[in-house]
């Protein structure tokens, strides 16, 4: 029989932590700091509005772009909270999570052989999505000495005649790094000078602990060459609902929409109804969750530094990214032994691409009690090395 698997599918490496996953599932009493999702339940008013809509028979397809009322409400929200002007008629598409938004954005812009720069460490799907679209993913390393912000010189170095776009994600998964307006300005100058497109994944925007989030598209002259991705998963504890959105100038949005209508048709209507309720009335729930993450971040990061794992203070998202270099173990060895010996699950940083090695991603989206217990276990592990 022939090998039916496409070369592209073969080209994508399997997930680096499959074996960790399988191991953790067989163990008892594991504290997992490996989960990149909120530990809160979705606020009940969101759930209830979705349940009610199902009772009312709201179970059909929606327009490809998403429910008009959701797009209108979202458009107002983006303007009010981030100063982002996107027209609800033709510049916003509701997607099945940011994952889908990312995929269709890349497919809409990549020609075979185009190089797409990815600020790394980064979320695991960016590079494979570029590969699947026939492009070439080119990592740009963000380093600890820059507090994991994207360095303009590092970016400049990677640009060639084939470079088409830059993908960034701030607040960042896995480092928690944030780019302020000046940081973004320096990047914007290069993007404009080299005539690149910017894809910015801002799904952790609401989880910003120092000051307020700066949307990349609000940096002057960037809007017309930016695709903004965001979603409801992280801010409103709605990961399983699969609702995200893509915002871009009309021409770009039209191209993306063609792909969206063929691959997804529309985001699930129940999720869209829940998302609408989230914007309308879950502001306080969101703020309470963000405040709790902030408290956990403070105590957890201080704790990691105290027990001997140097950790920069993450200004956003819900990840701490400690360095393990001085232990003499690689991040993968450290993570594997920590799981086996002390039953704490963390993600080795190298999973997230260049710049991630010798670091661990520890999600503090678990209770304070568990964080304290995890710190104790990691300390015991370090003493035994």
């Amino acid at each position: 029989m022939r090998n039916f698997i496409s070369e592209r599918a073969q080209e994508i490496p399997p997930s680096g932590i499959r074996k960790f996953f399988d191991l953790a599932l067989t163990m008892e009493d594991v504290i997992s700091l490996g989960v990149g999702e909120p530990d809160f339940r979705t606020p009940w008013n969101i759930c209830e509005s979705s349940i009610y809509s199902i009772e009312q028979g709201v179970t059909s397809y929606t327009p490809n772009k998403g429910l008009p009322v959701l797009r209108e409400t979202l458009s107002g929200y983006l303007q009010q909270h981030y100063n982002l002007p996107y027209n609800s008629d033709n510049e916003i598409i509701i997607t099945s999570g940011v994952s889908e938004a990312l995929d269709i954005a890349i497919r809409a812009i990549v020609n075979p052989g185009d190089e797409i720069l990815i600020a790394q460490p980064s979320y695991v799907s960016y590079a494979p999505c570029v590969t699947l679209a026939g492009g070439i993913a080119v990592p740009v390393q963000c380093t600890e000495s820059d507090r994991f912000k994207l360095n303009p010189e590092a970016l400049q170095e990677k640009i060639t005649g084939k470079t088409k776009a830059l993908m960034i994600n701030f607040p960042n998964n896995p480092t928690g790094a944030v780019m302020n307006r000046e940081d973004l300005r320096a990047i914007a100058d290069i993007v404009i000078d080299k005539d690149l497109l910017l894809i910015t994944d801002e799904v952790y925007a609401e989880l910003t602990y120092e000051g307020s989030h700066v949307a990349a598209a609000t940096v002057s002259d960037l809007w017309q060459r930016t695709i903004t991705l965001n979603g409801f998963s992280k801010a409103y504890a709605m990961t399983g609902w699969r609702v995200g959105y893509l915002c871009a100038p009309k021409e770009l949005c039209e191209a993306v929409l063609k792909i969206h209508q063929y691959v997804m048709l529309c985001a699930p209507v129940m999720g869209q109804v829940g998302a609408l309720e989230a914007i309308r009335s879950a502001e306080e729930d969101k703020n309470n969750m963000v405040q709790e993450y902030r408290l956990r971040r403070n105590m957890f990061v201080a704790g990691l530094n105290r027990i001997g794992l140097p950790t920069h203070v993450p200004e956003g998202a819900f990840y701490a990214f400690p360095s393990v270099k001085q232990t003499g173990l690689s991040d993968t060895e450290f993570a594997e032994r920590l799981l086996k010996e002390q039953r704490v699950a963390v993600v080795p940083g190298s999973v997230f691409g260049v710049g991630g090695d010798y670091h661990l991603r520890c999600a503090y989206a678990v209770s304070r009690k568990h964080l304290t217990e995890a710190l104790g276990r990691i300390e015991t592990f370090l003493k035994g090395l």
Partner: protein
Amino acid sequence: MNEKDLELLKILEDNSRLSAQEIAAMTNLAPSEVEARIHALEAAGVIRKYTTVINWEMAGNGEVSSIIELKVSPERDYGYDRIAESLSRFRQVKTLRLMTGTYDLQLLVTGKNMQEVSRFVSEHVAPMDRIRETATHIIMKSYKENGNMLFEQKEAERLPYSF
């Protein structure tokens, strides 16, 4: 009262048993500053007491709780204050509030059994001057107290890893 004080109050309202060290780690304040701020809030009377939320039904002491509503004729110069303060002195009255609506005062009263509650209302509360009408509601079951659910909730299952 500044933002840090409000942050401390929220933390203590959720769990008043946290140590100054634990609160300090969460708020990026020095433990001594946490203690000083809490003492100041206690001294100012903003923090009234440290208490617990107990599921008495589960503890099984058999006590009966009731909500009692009162229509009251307010007093010249004092309004509802004097009668409310007078009612507050009864040990049996756990909570007392002035409300809008059909009734004026709302009391939470607990007693060993139904007879004790009803005797308290008929002998002590109803005969008071200026009380025109009472309505007593016995609490059958409590599902949520002070933001805390009193019934068992299933833990949501999460994957050990996700990105």
